[in-house]
């Protein structure tokens, strides 16, 4: 029992992105270093920077600080055959998969909504072989982003070993030349497009994030192209006052879009809490294919932009309520 897992040295699934650091360096060599105004619209950012077939990586934690506005636009523009880093992914991977954008996914976490249970529409999408799947763990994808951000082709780690997670990954093993010990070799992950929602950015793309970073500093560095959505545009002077807070430097970034409430229905640290009513509505509709289609018709295809979507989900009053919860402001008449 499990002998083959203990002995294995090579995962059997497909490696979706080339880990060659010299190939990546050629891309980074050609990225602009100019301090130029990169502010654009959601629509233009997506149409300019996301191509059918691209492999994308989204920042945040699946339903925390996610780039919802950008992802809705990816769906609205009917991008197809996308790959995705399903790293700590929840609502982000669900809507991309359920709307038919994906044909491959590196998975560490999908389908689940933590204590809210599982998503039926995500299950339908990921149980089908229309999406090719390669398995990983959270740390494996975090370290794959790190390895790429460091310009490497691999990094050793001590997880995955001995499991089916390794077997269905595209990892290999490597022997430490100093200790002779066996390590997992994780291939560097250089996504085509990184999409990250941040707290503050300037027009050049220097970004600051309140709260935990998950792996976004590395994800942004690793990606060939980067789209930033930000709660707030701030002046370059404000960035320069606290340069130790800059998590993503401008040279990583290709487009900046200001989208207040851009992580809805997700939690945005220091800004707003989860929209639980919305999640229940979404998970309810997701139970059937018709419901799923209805959802996308109503909330994505049927609205022209994120502002209109926000009106639909309850507008500024709703967002103020979610803000009050996040800020621990409990009103007299209920929370």
């Amino acid at each position, binding site marked *: 029992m499990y002998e083959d897992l*203990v002995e294995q040295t090579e995962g059997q699934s497909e490696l979706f992105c080339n880990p060659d650091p010299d190939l990546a360096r050629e891309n980074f060599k050609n990225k602009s270093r100019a301090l130029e105004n990169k502010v654009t619209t959601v629509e233009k950012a997506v149409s300019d920077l996301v191509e059918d077939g691209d492999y994308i990586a989204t920042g945040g934690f699946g339903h925390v600080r996610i780039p919802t506005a950008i992802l809705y636009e990816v769906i609205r523009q009917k991008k197809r055959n996308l790959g995705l880093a399903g790293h700590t992914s929840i609502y982000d991977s669900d809507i991309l998969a359920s709307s038919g954008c994906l044909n491959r996914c590196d998975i560490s976490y999908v389908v689940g909504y933590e204590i809210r249970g599982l998503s039926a529409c995500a299950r339908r999408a990921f149980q089908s072989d229309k999406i090719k799947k390669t398995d990983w763990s959270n740390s494996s994808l975090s370290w794959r982003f790190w390895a790429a951000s460091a310009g490497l082709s691999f990094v050793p780690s001590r997880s995955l070993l*001995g499991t089916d997670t390794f077997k269905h990954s595209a990892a290999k093993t490597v022997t430490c030349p100093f200790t002779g010990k066996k390590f997992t070799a994780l291939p560097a992950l250089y996504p085509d497009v990184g999409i990250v929602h941040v707290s503050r950015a300037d027009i050049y793309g220097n970004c600051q994030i309140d709260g935990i970073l998950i792996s*976004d500093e590395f994800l942004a560095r690793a990606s060939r192209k980067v789209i930033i959505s930000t709660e707030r545009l701030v002046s370059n002077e404000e960035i320069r006052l606290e340069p130790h807070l800059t998590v993503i430097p401008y040279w990583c970034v290709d487009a900046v879009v200001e989208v207040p409430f851009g992580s809805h229905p997700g939690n945005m640290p220091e800004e707003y809490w989860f929209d639980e009513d919305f999640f229940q509505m979404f998970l309810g509709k997701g139970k059937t294919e018709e419901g799923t289609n209805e959802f996308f018709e109503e909330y994505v295809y049927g609205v022209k932009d994120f502002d209109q979507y926000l009106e639909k989900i309850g507008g500024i009053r709703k967002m103020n309520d979610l803000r009050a919860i996040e800020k621990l402001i409990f009103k007299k008449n209920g929370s």
Partner: protein
Amino acid sequence: MSAEYNPLELMVCVGSRVLEDNSTVEVGTGVPMAATLLAQKLYAPNIIAIFEAGGVAPLMPGLPISVGDSRTSHKALLASSMNDVMETCQRGMVDYTFLGGAQIDMYGNLNSTMIGDDYQNPKVRFPGSGGANDLGSLCWKTIVITPMDKSRFVEQVDYLTTPGFLNGKGAREKAGLPLGTGPYKVITNLAILGYDEETCRMQVESLHPGVTIEQVEENCGFELLKAAKIEDTPPPRDEELRVLREEVDPTGYIIGR
């Protein structure tokens, strides 16, 4: 029985008692969060809760919904990154991890990925490893909290997501996992289970109030060993239930009341 309680409440209360004070605990979503919070309030005030997305030792204003939400770093000692937390686990700084899982076998191997035998076309897809494989690989001691029945406690997991003892003593080390790590306890609705040191197989260590060894065996899909002395689990105390219901999970999000 000192009070009425449901199986989830029982598991949370029992789970809250196994953590040492002044230890570091990497906390998974759901029941483990509630158990850790309850432990902090009653038994181990200086337990250091670590969340995989980057939050360390927060003063939580309420139960987090996610191991990555803003409550996990509210007034924390450290709000860093998943990379930093996982590296801290890999470095050997984290004593316990507290996980769930859809299937578990006699060596404590966990499945949270799928039911079926084709990874590309599973019968039922679950979320996958998330951080579970990492935490079960890299933390010193793995505690699992899960209700017990034959569909969960199985001879062989459909998919080995997170390593327990793999196929027995020495297998983790052979696979390359850090030395001295592995499964520690399984907290269920019927009993507390541990592992026999020699064989690395699961054993019954303590029976919950009113539960017989036969009931435990009937609800398990593999042969369980028995500890030299099987204890009686003290029932949830009134104070445990009060703090759990009033302070830890007042909306019943996790304990389902």
